[in-house]
């Protein structure tokens, strides 16, 4: 938790230089996927490899959430039979994966992005349209 406090302090002092928005990748349909193309603004801040890994991990998790498999069919049929009242007591598969994604982004921010003066915003807060990356002013931050 001491680590989180120091991140807070850092962000309070740092000013926002720019924001980059990673757009959606629609090449495989309407499924939620983000482009893995490395934006030029991040060139001197983070590894291309690291960035692509993060986006790919996010894409895999969203694919898992939206997968059309036996689990989603069983969930759908069961819910229909109970007139969807079952969702009053049960969390949907998608919501469970979204929680996982939120945790993952928090983890990535703490370990990789914050030390480099960057901040990932969970796409759900932007309507699953973009992954917003805030670039903070590069003062003497610990690398």
């Amino acid at each position, binding site marked *: 938790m001491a680590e989180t406090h120091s991140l807070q302090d850092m*962000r309070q002092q740092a000013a926002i230089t720019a924001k980059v928005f990673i757009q959606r990748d629609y090449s495989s349909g309407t499924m939620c996927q983000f482009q893995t193309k490395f934006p030029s603004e991040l060139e001197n801040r983070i590894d291309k490899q690291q960035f692509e890994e993060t986006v790919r991990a996010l894409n895999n998790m969203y694919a898992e959430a939206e997968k059309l498999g036996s689990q989603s069919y069983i969930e759908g049929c069961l819910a229909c039979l109970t007139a969807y009242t079952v969702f009053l007591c049960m969390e949907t598969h998608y919501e469970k994966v979204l929680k996982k994604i939120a945790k993952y982004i928090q983890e990535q921010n703490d370990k990789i992005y914050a030390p480099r003066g960057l901040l990932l915003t969970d796409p*759900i807060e*932007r309507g699953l349209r973009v992954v917003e990356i805030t670039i903070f002013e590069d003062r003497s931050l610990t690398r």
Partner: protein
Amino acid sequence: MSAVMITRKVRKWEKLPGKNTFCCDGRVMMARQKGVFYLTLFLITGTCALFFAFECPYLAVHLCPAIPVFAVLLFLFVMAMLLRTSFSDPGVLPRALPEEATFIEMEIEAANGNVPAGQRPPPRIRNVQINNQIVKLKYCYTCKIFRPPRASHCSICDNCVDRFDHHCPWVGNCVGKRNYRYFYLFTLSLSLLTIYIFTFDIVHVVMRSMNGGFLNTLKETPGTVLEVLVCFFTLWSVVGLTGFHTYLISLNQTTNEDIKGSWSGKNRGQNPYSHKNIIKNCCEVLCGPTYPSVLDRRGLLQEDTLISSSNPVPQTTKTTAPLIPNEHTPDDAKPSIAASAEKSPSPKEEHPAATKVPPLASPETDAETSIAKERAH
């Protein structure tokens, strides 16, 4: 002259742009015009009430007691589906925040290059390739986003809706990605209910007429006439609608696409979203994953109201919230748009028991709030 800044927490739904009405503190979301929805409710409950009052006692005794039981179950299912369709978020896409809007504008300008003065700039369209098919994404000037494929802007609700089907006045809401299956189940179950009531009305009239005569029967159960009338007209429209939507589901198309003729005529058989298999298409639409709402209607926002001692009336309402300027935003609220808001990260909706407490703010939101406070002072 001292001024006092009063900060109060408001729910996000109170600050959402668009022409929706919200009830139950953001749990219910509907369109503005609800008159036809009340008519739908009245017709369904009224007809069923007449059925339970006039037909059911006779049929339960003379035919089978399971008849009213099944009617009750069917009626409850119809109402559940109707309310679920009407009250849920159809899949509204939130508008772009100012920074995102500026970013997209810069991208568009870069793509268009220098347009000589006097010439109209080219239309804002992005081409994407989906399953070897070029799909054009249009730019929405109201929401300041490039609409995802299959999304469309509803002018009645003033929102972009994902997988937009149509705006249905009968349910008082748009039909989109999140509530299409409830809408379909509503039309299907309503068709079954109408056929059920119609059939048993006829059976009841025939059975009673055999004993007492046709005119006597009508005198004893005047409700039957009304029911038959309502059912007769409902049958043609609702059964037809169910058939139409069954056809659309089997092809994985939306009403919007069908009306525009996107995948018909010379484009027939090129729908990139279809799995080319009727069963798979039906499974995806009806039994696919339940998408969460991305609107976060019940999240909390900080709203600052400035009250000066010389003028007790609140002068400015600066919401330190991402508020998109549109024609309804007062000019003095626009500078506050630059500030970011404190918000609860995860979206929660349609849990009337509210068993989940809004989560604690993450370090990110704490930092942004303090930046906002620094700017405000």
